[in-house]
């Protein structure tokens, strides 16, 4: 019996030593060790490791004692008292490369998370597939990716890129729901700078090719960028506070509710008189929603569409809002698929949607057309139509043509559609409309500018006015802006038990 205790004691010491070395190595690069990251991520003392002593599959690696664990720490802990699974790759062991054992550990933890209906977080810091293990390494990846897909829409899956993620390693994160990156020390790319240099003779650094900045502004692959690891992990904790543990259980609500009582009246004046002037829709979001509850997603990608979570009277809501101060709030390719993915995520996890609309239309241009704005816009339309969560729309100002339809209009399935008195809902903007409809009249008159101005006023009063929509029942009510919060709380409260059942089908065919 005593010799077993010795062995256990020896292992404990090994773990401590290994951790010391890991900390040293990682800190030199400005990074935390895998274990430290897990400590920051989970509530203190709640992390329970699974598979700490699994050895690498290949003998040449398993012979070295420090390689136990095969470069990944997997386990379960509590975040705000709720069960969450995680795996953290350890760059100090074989470069965090994924071998068969490493892959199996991750796959096991994914399967456990799915069985128990708990979220899973992946802390990625890996050199990629382990070349020496060849096809076994790739097969291990494949199993992980399959698990990602099987769990998709059932448990929240979050990836935090905390180092390199190259080649096949990026597929798992991209299949998950949200990707966090850490500035300057994390990278994602399919083929690295070396290969690019060899094949195409183009020089580019890792940061420029796939750093955090690139993926949160250019490619839109990542959703959050933090300046350091600590805040990135705290961000994960914050994100989880808006999400249910799985798609079956109800949403977490906040017990205390605070909001800017004294600022509600600002909403009455916040829309500029000049229709060509922009404003920041986030100001409106911050006034209507609970104080400091707005958590923006992908703020720097397609900034003309704002998405994120917030709380209304303590309950989480997904927000999709046009941003008039960027590109006039138009919908373009990037904004369309940014919005579509978010809407589908909220739908999967039963998070109600609030749509704040001020959109003059889709961005025109050869560029947009050649790159498939038709298909991309179709994604957003499909996502809204498909979503069976409560959907409440408030039209703040402009809402023209196809964009009006796409942004969860009444007949696409919007549950409540409100409008502010400043709303203008029409097939097209007054300038364009008047020119087309009254072309003959304007051509025949001496002073067309004056007539045009009159006709524009008439158009706004009679055709584009939201009261017209109200009369037709397509707008439920034209509301006073300063009452918006009160109205929305009631609207979502009415809709809280909404459930839809459709005839069975495997799944639809969203234009991808």
């Amino acid at each position: 019996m005593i010799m077993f205790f010795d062995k256990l004691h020896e292992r404990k010491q090994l773990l401590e030593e290994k951790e010391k070395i890991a900390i040293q190595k990682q800190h030199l690069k400005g990074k935390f060790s895998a274990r430290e990251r897990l400590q920051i991520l989970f509530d203190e003392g709640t992390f329970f490791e699974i598979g700490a002593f699994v050895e690498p599959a290949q003998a040449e690696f398993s012979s070295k004692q420090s390689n136990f664990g095969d470069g990944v720490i997997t386990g379960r802990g509590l975040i705000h008292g709720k069960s969450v699974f995680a795996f953290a790759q350890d760059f100090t062991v074989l470069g965090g490369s994924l071998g068969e054992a490493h892959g199996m550990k991750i796959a096991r933890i994914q399967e456990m998370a799915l069985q128990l209906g708990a979220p899973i977080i992946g802390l990625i810091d890996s050199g990629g597939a382990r070349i020496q293990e060849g096809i076994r390494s790739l097969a291990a990846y494949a199993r992980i990716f399959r698990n990602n897909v099987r769990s998709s829409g059932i448990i929240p899956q979050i990836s935090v890129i905390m180092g390199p993620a190259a080649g096949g390693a990026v597929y798992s994160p991209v299949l998950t729901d949200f990707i966090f990156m850490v500035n300057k020390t994390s990278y994602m790319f399919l083929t690295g700078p070396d290969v690019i240099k060899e094949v195409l003779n183009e020089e580019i650094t890792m940061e420029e090719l796939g750093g955090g900045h690139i993926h949160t502004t250019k490619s839109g692959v990542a959703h959050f960028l933090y300046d350091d690891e600590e805040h990135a992990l705290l961000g994960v904790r914050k994100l989880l506070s808006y999400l249910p543990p799985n798609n079956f259980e109800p949403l977490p609500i906040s017990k205390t509710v605070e909001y800017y009582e004294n600022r509600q009246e600002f909403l009455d004046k916040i829309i500029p008189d000049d229709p060509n002037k922009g404003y920041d829709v986030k100001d409106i979001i911050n006034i209507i929603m609970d104080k400091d509850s707005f958590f923006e997603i992908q703020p720097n990608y397609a900034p003309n569409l704002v998405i994120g979570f917030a709380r209304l009277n303590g309950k989480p809501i997904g927000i999709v809002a046009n941003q008039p101060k960027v590109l006039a709030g138009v919908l373009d390719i990037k904004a369309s698929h940014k919005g579509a993915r978010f809407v589908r995520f909220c739908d999967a996890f039963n998070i109600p949607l609030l749509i704040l609309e001020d959109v003059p239309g889709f961005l025109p241009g050869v560029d947009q057309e050649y790159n498939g704005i038709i298909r991309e816009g179709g994604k957003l339309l499909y996502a809204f139509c498909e979503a069976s969560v409560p959907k409440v729309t408030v039209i703040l100002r402009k809402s023209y043509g196809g964009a009006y339809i796409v942004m969860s209009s009444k007949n696409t399935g919007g549950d409540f559609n409100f409008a502010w008195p400043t709303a203008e809902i029409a097939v097209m903007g007054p300038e364009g409309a008047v020119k087309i409809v009254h072309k003959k009249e304007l051509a025949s008159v001496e002073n067309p500018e004056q007539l045009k101005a009159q006709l524009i006023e008439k158009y706004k009063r009679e055709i584009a006015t939201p009261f017209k929509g109200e009369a037709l029942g397509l707008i439920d009510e034209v509301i006073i802006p300063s009452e918006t919060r009160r109205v929305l709380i009631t609207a979502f409260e009415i809709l809280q038990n909404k459930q839809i059942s459709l005839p069975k089908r495997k799944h639809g065919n969203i234009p991808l």
Partner: protein
Amino acid sequence: MATRYIYKRDASRLFIALSEQGKKFKIYLPQDAYPIINDEEKEITILESKYDSFSFLWNNKKYFAQIKSKEQNKYRVIVNGVEYFFSIESISSYLRRRMLEDSSDSKKTVFINASIPGKITDIFVVEGDLVNEGEPLFSLEAMKMQNEFTSPITGIVKSIHVKVGDNVVKDQLILELSNINE
């Protein structure tokens, strides 16, 4: 009447507030005692904290601080009408930041191109200006809307390639910035 705040872990009570100019304030917030700033105890009492504002009493003088904006760990605070910018670090994130600044591999020159075609209506900077990340550089009129373009980095305006009134095409080079973090 002092406000009580909740602190779970000891190390988490120590913060480093870094100002825009790189000035460092070491701030330790003990549970029921005066804050210790740069290793000196300062007899500052919190009188009230509401929404995003705080009022303090220090040497028999009242101070009022309003958090104008916050993003992750970066705060803009207004005291007596003047705006101060701080990024708050805990010890580890501060050390990490220091470590990384010594070995940055970001490119020296940042090119700012027009992301949409339009007419330049305003240029807010001149060559040689030091601009902050997020500060407006120029505005462009497109689709009858004014679009303001802000700086992606903190740097120096190296050269401006257009003038007010110019019509620019998509991706046209508007100006160049020198990244000073190199």
